[in-house]
Structures are given as C-alpha cells and as structure tokens.
C-alpha cells in the first residue's frame, strides 16, 4: 500500500486511518482493535479491511452488537493495561454506550482521586450527507465535547487521519476520534514519513485578514472552498481547523479573530447548545472589543436528518451559504 521510497504517497482518508491502525498494532503489542464487523466483514466503512488476516482475531476482535458491553470492556481492558482501539460503527450507535463513555470512561480518573486513568481510544464515524436519514447521520462530536474527562478530536485531513491515532493511544485518558464518513473516500497525498501529530492544537489552514472561519471535520473543506471563492472577490478569509473540540485550543482562534475582527463558525452539529455556541461564547468573553460584526454561526438546520437528498443538503452547511454569509459580514453583499 505504501510507497515510502517516493517520499509522497497517494491514499484515501480511509487508507490513512488503516495505516495508522496498522502502525500502532505493530509498534505496541498492547494495542488491539475491537468493534462491530471490524474483522471478518472488514469494517463497516472498510477501514479495517485486511487487518484480521494480518493480526488475527485476538487483536482484530469482532464484537456482538453490544455497544455498551464492548465499549465498557474497552474501558476495563484499558484499566487492565491494554491499549484498546474501540470502533463504534457510527456516533448514533455510541448512544447505546453513552453510559460507559460518560459515566465511566470520563469520570473514573477523577472519581478515584487520580488512581484509575483510562487510556482508551474510541473511533466512530460521524456526520450526514449520505442519505442515511435520521438514525445514521448525527454529528454529536460537539455534544461529547461537553464532557470533561474525555478528549474529542476530529481529523479533517489525511495527515491527521494518519497521525492522530498514535498520539491518542499515547494519551493516558480516553480519546474519542470522530471520522466524518463523508471523508473516507477523500484522496490526497501524505509524506511517507507522516506520523504522529498533536491532538490538542488548532491549525490555521489558510491565512486571511478579513474574517476568521472556524471549522473542523467535513465542514472545514467547505470552508476552504468558500475561502477560495471569496479570495477572488478580494475577501481574505482565515480558515481554522479546530482539530480538537476538547481540549478546545481557543488561543488560536481568539488570536485570529482579534486580528480579523470577524468570526464565522461552520459546524455540522445542530446550532442549539453546539460547539459553535461554545466558540462564539469564548470569542465574546475574550475578544469582544475586537469584534467588528456579530459572531456568526452556520450550523445544521435543527431537524432530524431527512432522507431525500435535496432535503439533506438543505440541512447541512453549504459552500454558497458560507460565501454569502461572509459577504454580508464584511459588508460586501452589495
């Protein structure tokens, strides 16, 4: 799969995640993958395809449809000295394991007065856009980011898909990795030496002086696309990839907003009580006097995700909406 002597190699987001898992399995014997259909089926999104053959059924462990059971087992295994990667098929199903994630993984270290840390990694697919309707299209990463005790990261790029897993596995505390399912087929190149990356810093993807667009995951790519359109009109948007929703690297976006004086948050989550709301609040708290326009948010329309394609697209943030909103904010909407 890799072609390391070329320096750069081309791959998909899915392959980047797979390579990250493979590398971790090779580097650390304590690492194992468990989840529904990760083995014989090859993973619901084919991320773990081929890994069963390579590592065997002990370490590529198919689980029954028992989200609470196997996520909890992941917690126990982590407490017992293993480094489990638990794959929950989609964030929607993680709700069946929400008790284990919120009431156990997130609180055990604190509740035990610092005695029991849970070095667990949970990967799950998130996001809408594939006509999977209301029960398979949620974007709850911001909702999980509400919970202290866990970390929530959202790789949007191939580098992060490739590099965040190992860093997450090195973390002594539970890390939830949200992979937007719409990104799995995204192709690109990474360097052959691509490896671990930090998981607690936001990144400025594109510099600009007129407005700061704060986004993450799939919405990041829409934001970048919008920024390119705006640039042709002379509006320079700075685009920030949050990368991690908890911890939230506020300094990066606060610095940017303080310089651009405008902020738009693009978030596939629902608006009410969203991570976008949190970011807006922090901007108000910290750089209010730098604002030249009200902080704006572009989030999903607050409906259960509809099936029909045109309805679904109307729910999700779109490039033209970002463009129009930014034009309005910088006073360039004629």
């Amino acid at each position, binding site marked *: 799969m890799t072609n390391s002597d070329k320096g750069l190699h081309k791959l998909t987001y899915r392959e980047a995640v797979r390579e990250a898992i493979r590398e971790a399995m090779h580097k650390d014997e304590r690492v194992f993958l468990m989840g529904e259909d990760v083995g014989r089926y090859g993973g619901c999104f084919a991320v773990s395809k081929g890994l069963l053959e390579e590592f065997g059924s002990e370490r590529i462990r198919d689980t029954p449809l028992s989200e609470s059971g196997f996520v909890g*087992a992941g917690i126990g295994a982590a407490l017992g000295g293993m480094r489990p990667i638990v794959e929950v098929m989609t964030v929607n199903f993680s709700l069946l394991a929400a008790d284990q994630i919120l009431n156990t993984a997130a609180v055990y270290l604190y509740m035990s007065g610092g005695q029991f840390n849970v070095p667990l990694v949970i990967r799950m697919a998130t996001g809408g856009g594939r006509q999977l309707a209301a029960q398979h299209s949620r974007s709850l990463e911001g909702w999980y980011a509400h919970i202290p005790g866990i970390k929530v990261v959202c790789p949007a790029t191939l580098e992060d898909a490739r590099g965040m897993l190992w860093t997450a596995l090195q*973390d002594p505390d539970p890390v939830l990795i949200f992979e937007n399912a719409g990104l799995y087929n995204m192709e690109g190149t990474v360097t052959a030496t691509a490896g671990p990356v930090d998981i607690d810093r936001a990144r400025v993807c594109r510099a600009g002086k007129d407005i700061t667009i704060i986004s993450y995951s799939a919405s990041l790519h829409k934001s970048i696309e919008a920024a390119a359109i705006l640039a042709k009109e002379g509006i320079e948007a700075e685009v920030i990839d949050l990368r991690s929703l908890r911890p939230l690297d506020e300094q990066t976006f606060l610095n940017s907003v303080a310089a651009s004086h405008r902020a738009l948050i693009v978030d596939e989550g629902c608006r009410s009580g969203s991570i976008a709301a949190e970011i807006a609040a922090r901007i108000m708290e910290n750089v209010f006097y730098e604002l030249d326009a009200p902080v704006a948010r572009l989030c999903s329309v607050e409906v259960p995700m509809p099936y029909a394609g045109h309805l679904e697209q109307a729910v999700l943030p779109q490039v033209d909406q970002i463009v129009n909103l930014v034009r309005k904010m910088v006073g360039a909407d004629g």
Partner: protein
Amino acid sequence: MHRKESGKTKTDMVDSVHARHLLHSMIRIRRLEEKCAELYSAMKIRGFLHLYDGEEAVAVGVLEALTGDDAVVATYREHGHALIRGIGMGAILAEMYGKQDGCSRGRGGSMHLFDGKARFYGGNAIVGGGLPMAVGLALADKMQQRSRVTCCFFGDGAVAEGEFHESMNLAALWHLPVLFVCENNLYAMGTALKYSQAVVDLATKAASYGVAAAAVDGMDVLAVEKAAKEAAEVVRGSGKPFFFECRTYRFRAHSMYDPELYRSKAEVEEWKGRCPIATFAGKMKDQGTVGDGDIEKIEQDVAREIDEAVAFAEASPWESLEDLTRFVYSERRAP
C-alpha cells in the same frame, strides 16, 4: 454448565483462628455501617449512603476466595467490600467525610471508594455499569496471559440491565475469567424481584449464556466462602466466567432517606433473625470454636478501630480548592 446448591450443604468445620477472622471481618463491616448511619445523622456524611447491614457474609465470604492479584469491581453499596479488600477504615470514612485523605481524595464519597493497590475498581453507582468493565479487565488479563480473576459484584436489580446481558454474553463468548457475584437481596431499591423479573431464579439466566452458575445462602458466611472458592477455582482453572448468586437481605433501608413502604416489618424481622453475624457467632460458640471472650475482644478491637478511623477522618484536611480540577485528566503521559 453446572449448577450447585452450595448453601444447602453442611457447613464444614473451621479452625478457631479462621472463625475469629470471619467474625471479626463481618463485625467490622457491621459496626462501620452503624457508625456511618450515626455520622450521617450528625451530618458528617452527606450524599447518598447505602448501608450493607445483613449482607456482610457475602463480601466477607466471596473476598476470601480472591488473591491480591485479582480485581474487584463493586457497586455503590460497597463499604464492606472496600474494607475487607484492604482499604483502611480511616481512608473509607475520610472519603465519606469528603476529606483529602479519603481513598478517592474526597471526589467519590460513599458510592465511589477506590484503591489502586488493592485493585479495587470502585464503587460504581450506575446499576450494571461495572459489568462491562469487569469483562474488559478479564480480557486484558487473558490477552496478557495472566491468570487472574476479576470479581464483579452487582445486585439483583442489575440483572434487568442490558449491560448484564451484554457482559454475560461477551465473557462467555470470549472465555473471560470473570466471577459475576450477584448479591440478590430481593429488592431493586423498592421493587421486589418478582415485580421486575419474569424469571426470579437468577442463576438460571446464566445458563442461557452458557455460563456456569451456583446459588448460595448469602446469610451463611461459611457457605458463601466455600462456594465462592469453588467458583473462583472454576474461573481460574477454565478461564471462563461464573455466575454466583448470593441470596441475602439488607436490614436497613435502601439508603438513608427511605421510608420502606415496599416491605413489611415482619419480613425484615424474620430476616434479621437470620443475621449472618449472630448466626455464625452462635454456631461457633456452640461448637466451642470461639468463646464469649473472643467476641468481646473482637468488639473492643473494632470499636477502637472505628474510633481511630473517625478521629482520622475528622483530622484530615479538606482537599484544597486549588486542586478542584486535578484528575479530570492525567498529570502524566501513560507508560
């Protein structure tokens, strides 16, 4: 798949030292719980307080079957388990006081006692929440080829939770060394078993998962100890799970603020007549294994231990407010 009725077998003879040890253990629990109730009334202890009076034989008997390497996962009614597992009474009481020297540094309270050295994975206050963790601890042992048992206590109420069934299935499916100990005290808070379970014979549920099971009279410490040791041996030998039901009864209310509308005084009195401490003490005296002097000495020792524990808890400082946010995340990278 085998099933035993160990509780019905004739109690084996025990030597005097062991008998005094069992008695001492049960009395420690009982007197601690009585002290907790008193301290709660004096507002030294707050929050929810679930006392274990009447069920002492279960914790004492089962924990006799474990080694120091084994892991224990318990529930929110875990003072007795924590104490017998080796957490100091002072650290337990200090925790209930919310003090810095508490075994969870004042962050857990009565329902969340923890101890890393004792591999005591806590008071887990989500009913059924500890079962998947026990499965995972056993999975880690298995994957690392360690011959250890994870002992998971839970009540009859947990049997209705999905996590019970998921965990039984996973442990059986993956052949994991978990000793599932169901402390069946007949009531899930205020709901009698017959109102929550279509099949009240809980041990039979294990059969559907292909898990070996046994039920024992949880009011008889020797019976519990013997059956638990047998069960633990099965787990240790086979590497597979075991479902161990201890039929017992709590003498006090579910928690401190419980008017007990769901059961009759007569029923409570009837069970109190089967008090595991009084029954065992009487039996041992009858056999001449322990004497009144022994019991008196135990009571004195325990009284002194409690006095010291209370003094320790009283003297312990409050956790500094500056440390409020410590331990949300680890302070060091994992090895």
